[in-house]
């Protein structure tokens, strides 16, 4: 009798008349509790997000209303000044540019590693490589920062000279100012290393999900291994690669300590990515928070709100792209 109920009830007291009713009522009760709990969790999540948004907007409005400069176009951050002036233009530019550099470097490498692990490497090699890549994610970002400042910056100087010499005509790689390699480019390289594990592991999971039938069918038609990857693995995994990249981009946008340690911040916008200077939202907050008075903190919170919105937009865009490519995604396979 008890076995007909969908949920395993704990051993009930042996009272025959109750036994008939109890399982169903207990089942309903369990359902109700579960529905309540999950609904409560969902609402709690919304409440938390809403209160963060309300807190950010409230403090941001206080700051922006007292700002004597233009919040969007001023190239300065001086809320303690007289008059108080601050703007996010440089921070927005630096955040976006360093993240783009990181994506350009990291995504191809990450996809390559993922393909190697899932399709090329012998099993004995694939597991350790995957493990080591995952370990990269476990290194705290301040350690990346110290490593970047002490090792990466001196080493990248040679690369900078080389890029300046041979690719100076691209404008982007034209190094017009002297200075050590504490630039947005270096930050981009460091961020690329930091987002490699997340992009790699998600892509790898997706590549492993590719239906074996597709691959075997391609092989049976005489395709080489590269053609198999090009014809079946990559189209199938495209939306997965995009979502993996967006996860990585999310980390790159918000990275704080590593950037603050490596970058030589200044309130200048320059497309010469090898020049020292620039800034990102998170780096600016970390650098300025300590000495900021209450109004200065409100100003920093206002800049945090912009980062919040930026992340939201990026995630939204990623969803759109994935939705548009649904026909290729694993959901229909």
């Amino acid at each position: 009798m008890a076995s007909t109920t969908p949920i395993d009830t704990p051993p009930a007291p042996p009272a025959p008349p109750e036994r008939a009713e109890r399982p169903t009522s207990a089942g309903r009760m369990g359902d109700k509790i579960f529905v309540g709990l999950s609904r409560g969790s969902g609402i709690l999540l919304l409440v938390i997000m809403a209160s963060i948004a309300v807190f950010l907007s409230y403090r941001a409005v206080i700051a922006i209303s007292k700002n004597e400069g233009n919040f969007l176009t001023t190239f300065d951050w001086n809320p303690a000044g007289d008059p108080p002036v601050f703007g996010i233009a440089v921070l927005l530019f630096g955040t976006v540019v360093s993240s783009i550099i990181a994506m350009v470097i990291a995504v191809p490498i990450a996809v390559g590693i993922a393909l190697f692990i899932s399709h090329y490497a012998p099993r004995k090699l694939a597991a350790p490589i995957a493990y080591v890549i995952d370990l990269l994610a476990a290194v705290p970002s301040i350690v990346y920062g110290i490593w970047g400042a002490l090792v990466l910056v001196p080493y990248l100087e040679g690369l900078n000279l080389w890029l300046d010499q041979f690719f100076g005509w691209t404008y982007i790689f034209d190094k017009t100012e002297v200075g050590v390699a504490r630039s947005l480019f270096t930050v981009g390289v460091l961020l690329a290393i930091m987002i490699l594990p997340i992009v790699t592991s998600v892509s790898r999971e997706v590549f492993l999900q590719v239906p074996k039938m597709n691959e075997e069918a391609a092989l049976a038609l005489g395709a080489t291994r590269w053609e198999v990857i090009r014809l079946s693995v990559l189209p199938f995994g495209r939306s997965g690669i995009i979502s993996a990249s967006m996860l990585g981009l999310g980390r790159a946008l918000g990275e704080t300590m590593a950037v603050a340690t490596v970058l030589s911040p200044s309130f200048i916008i320059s497309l010469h990515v090898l020049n020292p200077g620039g800034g990102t939202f998170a780096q600016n907050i970390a650098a300025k928070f300590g000495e900021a008075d209450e109004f200065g903190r409100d100003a920093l919170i206002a800049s945090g709100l912009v980062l919040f919105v930026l992340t939201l937009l990026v995630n939204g865009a990623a969803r759109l792209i994935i939705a548009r490519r649904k026909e290729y995604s694993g959901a229909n396979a």
Partner: protein
Amino acid sequence: MKLQRKNRLRATALGALAVSGALVLTACGSDDNTGGSSTPGSGDKTTAASNIDCGKAKGQLRASGSSAQKNAMDLWVKNYMAACSGVEINYNSSSSGEGIVAFNQGTVGFAGSDSALKPEEVTESKKACKTGQGINLPMVGGPVAIGYNLEGVDKLTLDAPTLAKIFDTKIKKWNDPAIAKLNEGVDLPDKAIQAFHRSEDSGTTQNLGKYLGAAAPNEWKYEAEKKWPAPGGQAASGSSGVAAQVKQVDGAIGYFELSFAKSQNISTVAIDNGGSAPAEATSENASKAIAAAKVKGTGKDLALELDYTTKADGAYPLVLVTYEVVCDTGNKPETLDTVKSFLSYAASDDGQKILTDAGYAPIPAEINTKVRETINGLS
């Protein structure tokens, strides 16, 4: 079964080992604690610091603020706590801004600050000091060293206008005529100058700005603020960060407290103040410059106005003075005695004497006398 029993045995053995190990360790720990806390209280150190008047000081005193005076504060706290058992002083060397915020919130007994309270900060302090307001007590002086790294050049003299142009990136090469003129006989390389400044807001930056603004008004047109005002140059975080960059990069120049230059063996610039000879960045030379300072605060407030344009022989003009911020009246009763007793020690001859060894400069005697009077009158 056999295996399980073996495992269980092993588990009990391990458990026993862990328990006994923990017992042994805790025994050691408690031993150490009593030993550690009793020695400084009794022992030989008491005699060394016997001039410290503990008064009615007791309990715990929290303080926070400027990291520029951290090394001085560490010495004072160590000596004071060695002499006065039962008192615990906890100075959190965060930054001047954080110290003042904490002071105005009433969470610390006193705050350390690189610059005197601004008018709006005084207004705010009236909330924390129920019957009075926050005042500045100058306690530690010191030179801001201009450190540089230039291969083959171990002696360099600059003056305020040249420094202003260097930090404003108007002078771009080390063999610029302006630098060569001040350094006759020195072989200056044709190398780019890489000027480093602080990336976060800092009292040291503000002091450099005040100096350049006063001594080179035509070359330095920026307001003296905690934030670095000029558009060019490179930035690093904290005095330690700037010092590290100067140490690492050939052709670099930057500014930081003298102790950072000393500890990392960074060459420092001698400043030509217009006197007979360029002044090296040393504690003694800084004292000579601070001696020209005047008190500009009113009432019990002893905020100083430094004379950055002093031409006194050997006076190193680029100095900063850090203050302890307290309430003139309305200090919290539970910490008042400790604050008075501790600051009295810091302002005493003994307390000021140890500053020189730590790379700082004592406050001139006549100002120091006023500081001591004010501390005695705190309520």
